[in-house]
């Protein structure tokens, strides 16, 4: 059971800002929200992580509203090399393991950057 909901795909042009939103209604109080990027034939790679409000690093910004039920990854001035699948990750409260937490990726958002 996927814990997060994202758009399946998005297209953009080089130089534009791209915003990808993830819905996570059952996020736990202490959970952080983490975004990963995956290129074909590679494992996912960490992009950014946050708990609330706004976080910015050298490659992206992450916006999290006060209720934390969604988050938005912002990629400024995308280039062709940003074409990839983007995943948001939170703990999964809907699957019981009897002890520890589950970390489930959703289907991700395929971002295609066009020239």
């Amino acid at each position, binding site marked *: *059971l*996927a814990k997060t909901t994202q758009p399946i795909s998005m297209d953009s042009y080089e130089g534009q800002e791209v915003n990808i939103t993830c819905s996570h209604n059952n996020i*736990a109080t*202490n*959970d*952080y929200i*983490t975004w*990963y990027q995956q290129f074909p*034939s*590679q*494992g*996912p*790679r*960490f992009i950014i*992580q946050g*708990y609330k409000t706004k976080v910015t690093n050298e490659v992206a910004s992450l916006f999290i509203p006060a209720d934390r039920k969604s988050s938005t990854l912002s990629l400024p001035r995308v280039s062709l090399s940003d074409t990839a699948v983007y*995943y948001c*990750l*939170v*703990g*999964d409260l809907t*699957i019981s*393991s*009897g*002890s*520890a*937490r*589950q*970390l*489930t*990726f*959703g*289907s*991700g958002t395929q971002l295609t950057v066009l020239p």
Partner: protein
Amino acid sequence: NAGVTQTPKFRILKIGQSMTLQCAQDMNHNYMYWYRQDPGMGLKLIYYSVGAGITDKGEVPNGYNVSRSTTEDFPLRLELAAPSQTSVYFCASSLGWADRNEKLFFGSGTQLSVL
């Protein structure tokens, strides 16, 4: 540092055969994970381990077994391979829980085909 190393990169199995996917990390991470990724889909958690000697089931554990005898290694065993196990397998590690201000480091994956 090598990070997370997976072997083999590719493997073809016949139905009913068994094999072990190897995963090693050199970052002294406590937590390790096995995911599978079917074509066009997100990653599903198979098993995870919070330390040597401690493992637990993820979302899709059936048909797999794991062991964690050392901090560095986390092999995944496939018994009686079935076509439904055709997938790309990713091993990952993190210092602590990846949904609480930690991040996952992924290997490059093993492409497995069961024919």
